[in-house]
């Protein structure tokens, strides 16, 4: 699976998440949008929802059982959840391994 395709999927999932926010909480979805940490655009529960939605999407659409929160992801010095771009890179790695 190509990185561009994965990036498109992740951004779509973030957009779906954004749709659940009120008008004054809406944000711009872009590659470097911060997902995790003190500068994050979304709170931790929203990040959990995004992770669950993304995992479910890959299973439902491609039959791929991926876990984005296993030890491999959680023990990295640079978190895969920093931005949409880093999350895409991580999924690209997981899907193509």
């Amino acid at each position: 699976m190509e990185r561009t395709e994965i990036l498109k999927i992740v951004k779509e999932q973030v957009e779906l998440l954004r749709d659940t926010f009120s008008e004054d909480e809406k944000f711009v979805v872009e590659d470097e949008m911060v997902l995790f940490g003190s500068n994050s655009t979304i709170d931790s529960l929203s990040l959990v929802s995004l992770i669950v939605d993304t995992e479910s999407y890959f299973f439902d659409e491609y039959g791929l059982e991926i876990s984005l929160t296993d030890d491999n992801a959680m023990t990295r010095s640079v978190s895969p959840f920093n931005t949409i771009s880093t999350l895409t890179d991580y999924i690209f790695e997981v899907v193509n391994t």
Partner: protein
Amino acid sequence: MYKNKVVFITGASRGVGLSLVKHFIENKACVIGVSKSESTFANSNYSHFSVDLADPEAISKLFKKEIHKKYKKIDIVINNAAVLTSQYSMVLPIKNATDMVNVNLLAVFFVSREAVKLMRNNDQGRIINIGSMAVSLEPIGDALYAATKAAINTLANVMAKEFSNYNVTCNTLSISAIDTDMLFQHSDSAKLKIDEIISNLPVPRKALIDDVLNVIDFYASDRSSYITAQTIYLGGVN
């Protein structure tokens, strides 16, 4: 009362679980029952899955392969399945000990977290754990059983916070002694002890299934959206 609701019940093949299945079916729900053994109950609105709840992978597989695809949603989960070996701690077999932790606690965790992933889609849900008076009475011989039941009280309370954004409530119904297979498996001396405990309760009788259904209906009601992180003990246990 439960028309168009999808209800997921563990430990559904006998005892309280089977009574819950019949109750929800009688009230027009679509019911999914899970237990290690097969079910003898049959109804067009009932589906039974034989799953070993002590196996987290089996629970995950059930939700991914069956529930997500066939049902698309779950409105109410009742974590009823439990195993009990009443024995002094020093001689409780390892297998029985791990089974109690796996079924009574970990399965509740895994079922709840898989169910809430579906409940999020409807922005509502009810998770109800079946607890026990053993948490309060701390009977000799039930150290681990009581500990697992205490743990699911806490589990519900924390999940209530985590899931409140999705309008999912999490509560516990702690039932006192009720005439089921689980109670009958006790030794005669243990039964005498239970009878003594029951005789000292504010309402000195065993629970009836209707006592259980009454609280289940309360927790499951659409009106109970503001009732969460609560434990109700039957019979005046506190």
